[in-house]
């Protein structure tokens, strides 16, 4: 089957924020820089269908051809103070040999952090970073400290959603002024996200831990049935935005609600690359509850749609997903279980992109010390995807992936 026209996106080399990298390099030599490197290797056993990185419709990162030793990721992170109130942050990853460049930047931003005054705290971020949605990806490098593979919601954010722009956050620090709770407001404006939605409409929801580098690509050019796409593009001249509120009860409960709209013009097309602008908007909500005895419960909910409107038609893919995660820390060990549900609908006449499924994840993580972490994860995804019928496969698939991960981290901030 040839690639649908909206998925044919030729490669374009882009330089990820050279100025910021130079700044970071300068800051790295200063006294106020913290850096960290880590290497995460995996032993994988998988019976999943062909991975999205190879043009397939598998819902996991590793498919049945990837069983054996794999590079989970290599990470380099830098946080540097630029004077007293500004800081620069960089997260760079190497994933595997399927990438265009061996190292990709997943987040790079400047942050302005004035001192809180009279119980209020303001923060400004500029650059490329994740919008404040996930309650699961709270560890360094936007990783999950509970499982190796992220939930379906947060995998999608890792693949297609990034703020390349500005974000302001205003917090009322009630817990610092004798109250039991804090309140926060956040708003962001961004560009370069016209491609967000294309992976959801083609692959559907997936569960893995691969974060698309900023200005990077998803998939392989020329791979069938799904080629490469670039989520981070700007050609319609419209900025997107989001706004959210956050409430916290002590250090135990976090509630986040956020409305996101990339405000892409669904009729816009980049005539050079052939890319179409995907208008993606969604509501998200999340609740995280932690106890003093090591228990954590996380619920996240996502509901939205993505649409394109090439001449003469309007194609829509409404999507929704939820997950519930329960985790318990026993000293250096963490046991977690998660249940995901996800669904992508469509009005495309042949049903392209229609997907429904659920997934179970169970993981054991052992932080031996500040440097070594061992992780074992079992993931089973059962999903019905209409696209699979077009590549002569059964639409219903049950995919199981078992991963053993060993990570070694070192750096100035790791002790």
């Amino acid at each position: 089957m040839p690639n649908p026209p909206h998925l044919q996106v030729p490669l374009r080399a882009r330089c990820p924020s050279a100025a910021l990298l130079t700044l970071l390099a300068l800051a790295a030599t200063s006294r106020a820089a913290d850096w960290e490197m880590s290497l995460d290797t995996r032993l994988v056993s998988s019976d999943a269908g062909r991975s999205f990185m190879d043009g397939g419709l598998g819902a996991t990162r590793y498919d049945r051809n990837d069983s054996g030793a794999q590079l989970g990721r290599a990470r380099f992170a830098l946080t540097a103070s630029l004077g007293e109130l500004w800081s620069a942050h960089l997260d760079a990853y190497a994933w595997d040999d399927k990438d265009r460049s061996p190292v990709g930047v997943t987040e790079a931003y400047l942050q302005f952090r004035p001192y809180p005054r009279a119980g209020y705290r303001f923060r400004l971020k500029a650059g490329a970073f994740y919008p404040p949605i996930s309650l699961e990806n709270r560890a360094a490098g936007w990783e999950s400290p509970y499982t190796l593979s992220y939930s379906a919601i947060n995998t999608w954010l890792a693949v297609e959603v990034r703020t390349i722009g500005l974000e302001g956050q205003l917090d009322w620090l009630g817990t610092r002024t004798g109250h039991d709770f804090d309140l926060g407001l956040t708003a962001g404006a961004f560009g370069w996200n016209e491609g967000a939605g294309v992976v959801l409409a083609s692959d559907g929801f997936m569960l893995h831990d691969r974060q698309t580098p900023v200005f990077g690509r998803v998939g392989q050019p020329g791979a069938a049935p799904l080629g490469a796409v670039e989520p981070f593009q700007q050609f319609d001249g419209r900025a997107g935005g989001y706004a959210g509120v956050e409430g916290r009860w002590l250090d135990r409960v976090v509630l986040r609600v956020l409305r996101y709209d990339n405000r892409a013009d669904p009729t816009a097309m980049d005539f050079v690359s052939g890319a179409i602008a995907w208008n993606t908007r969604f509501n998200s909500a999340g609740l995280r509850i932690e106890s003093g005895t090591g228990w954590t419960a996380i619920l996240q909910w996502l509901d939205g749609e993505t649409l394109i409107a090439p001449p003469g038609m309007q194609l829509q893919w409404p999507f929704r997903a939820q997950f519930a995660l329960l985790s318990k820390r026993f000293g250096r060990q963490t046991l977690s279980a998660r249940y995901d549900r996800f669904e992508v609908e469509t009005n495309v006449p042949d049903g392209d992109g229609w997907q429904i499924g659920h997934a179970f994840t169970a993981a054991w993580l052992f932080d031996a010390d500040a440097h070594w972490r061992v992780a074992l994860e079992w993931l089973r995804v059962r999903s019905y995807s209409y696209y699979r019928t077009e590549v002569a496969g059964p639409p219903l698939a049950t995919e199981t992936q078992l991963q053993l991960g060993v990570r070694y981290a070192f750096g100035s901030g790791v002790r």
Partner: protein
Amino acid sequence: MRPPARVRRSGCTARRAARVLALLAALGGRAGAVLPATLVIHVQTPDGHALAGAVVTVRPLDAPPRRPAPAHALMDQVNRAFAPDLLVIPVGSTVAFPNSDSVSHQIYSFSAAKRFQLPLYRGKPYPPVQFDQSGVITLGCNIHDDMLAYLLVTDAPYFGRTDAQGAWSTDVPRGRYRVSVWHPRLRESEADLERELTVGDADRADLQLRLLKSLQPAPITDRPHSWDY
């Protein structure tokens, strides 16, 4: 033979005690008003358990207030946490804030009793900060949001923290006193926990204070500091 030093010292103490007793005898029966009595404060949670670590301050109501001598205290930053996370200091005291961590910290306070900020870069010492006004000062780090500590600056001549049994004691001259109790996780106002009592003829006065509302839950301490708070 020269007597051992210990014997000589105890002989000296005995002589001094005899002199004090003679003086007390001369005062004729008024010894009770001069000798201090022991004041013991017991603090309990609403369900009757001992509350350790509560700050107790005691002010005399009869005598003119005597300010305690300023002190020099230290609050370190160790493993992305304040150590200790609570200091009680007399008005006019200074506190040094070193940074023993390998990462930088930015300490701030927006509390009315003292607004200040200190960028603590690695290995860069800062002059101690003086606290001239009484009150509770909440400290945070502008880089690590989960760091939290308190300074209680007091003008009370007697102060301290309850032990594991929820008790704190001090020797005070006989008279009337106002006793206050404070805790960082207190949910009721300090005024609700103020008591007046008279330390009379007995050698010991006890005061039992029970909180009306349960404390806020203690902060989660075993969460890795690298996690998003």
